[in-house]
């Protein structure tokens, strides 16, 4: 399984359709403070099914929809798609390329799609269940959170082992 590309539109500060292509090795994301780097990490967390508003740094889920800036009006829809190369068959679907898409309308209505086919939230979570990138895994370390691995309680640490087992 390899990440191919991430497409964001109306997600946080990415008002316009923006695409990032990932390399097989190390992709570095750089830029000034407040330019939108952590919003990219949030987009990856969100498209994989994240439900906790806190871990997306907002107060309500609607906070992920572009809220407007001095030069642009607020939008009514946030959409993120993640395209994955599945030629090794790690994801339990009969496709060599899988695109997961998540949308949220300002009305509160949310949509999930796997390869353009509407599905439920649970289908997206199940898709990634045994891959180690599920919602609560250590595969996404948010800004300022690296030391949380050390300062977790002994019980919490034990639980990582259980998911790792």
């Amino acid at each position, binding site marked *: 399984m390899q990440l191919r590309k991430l497409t964001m539109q109306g997600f946080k500060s990415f008002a316009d359709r923006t695409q990032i292509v*990932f390399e097989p090795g190390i992709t570095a*994301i750089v830029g000034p403070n407040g330019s939108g780097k952590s919003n990219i990490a949030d987009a*990856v967390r969100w498209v994989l099914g994240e439900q906790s508003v806190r871990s997306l740094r907002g107060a309500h889920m609607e906070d992920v929809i572009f809220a407007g800036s001095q030069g642009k009006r607020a939008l009514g829809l946030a959409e993120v798609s993640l395209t994955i190369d599945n030629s090794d068959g790690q994801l339990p679907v009969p496709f060599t390329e899988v695109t997961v898409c998540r949308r949220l309308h300002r009305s509160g209505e949310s949509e999930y799609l796997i390869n353009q086919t509407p599905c439920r939230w649970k289908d997206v979570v199940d898709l990634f269940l045994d891959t180690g990138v599920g919602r609560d895994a250590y595969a996404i370390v948010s800004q300022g959170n*690296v030391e949380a691995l*050390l300062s977790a309680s002994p019980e919490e640490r034990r639980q990582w*082992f259980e998911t790792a087992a």
Partner: protein
Amino acid sequence: TQELFHKSFQAVARQFAELYQELFGGGVAQLRLVGEGPDLDSLGVEVMVQPPGKKLQHLDLLSGGEKALAAIALLFAFLRERPAPFCVLDEIDSALDDANVERFARLLQSFKGRLQLIVITHRQGTMSAADALYGVSMNGEGTSQLFSVRLADVPA
């Protein structure tokens, strides 16, 4: 699953000790199971580290950079034992001094074939370890835009 748990615990503990020594250039790191057992719910995992030249310390007494580096060793010990296909790291190098940033960059490179790494950073040392570099900036309208930076343009 108790069998599996203990096997995975031993493996991560071994990797943690190894990666810690690699990152710190010495010292000792241990993971210990605490609690009565054998029921998994009654167990917890203790982390003990000893930076080179120092005594075994309570985690609170470590410095900001020592904590971050120890946490990175633990994270990559997990990633070695239970590889995830990719990992997104958001400025986990901000507390490190320049020498430790170099060590971190070398660690990233040693993980290259195992998984995809997406690393958000302000540190030069980490940038120079990358295969591809994306720049993000705010345009005149107050929205984010992305551009790909040719690696040749990064200041050495």
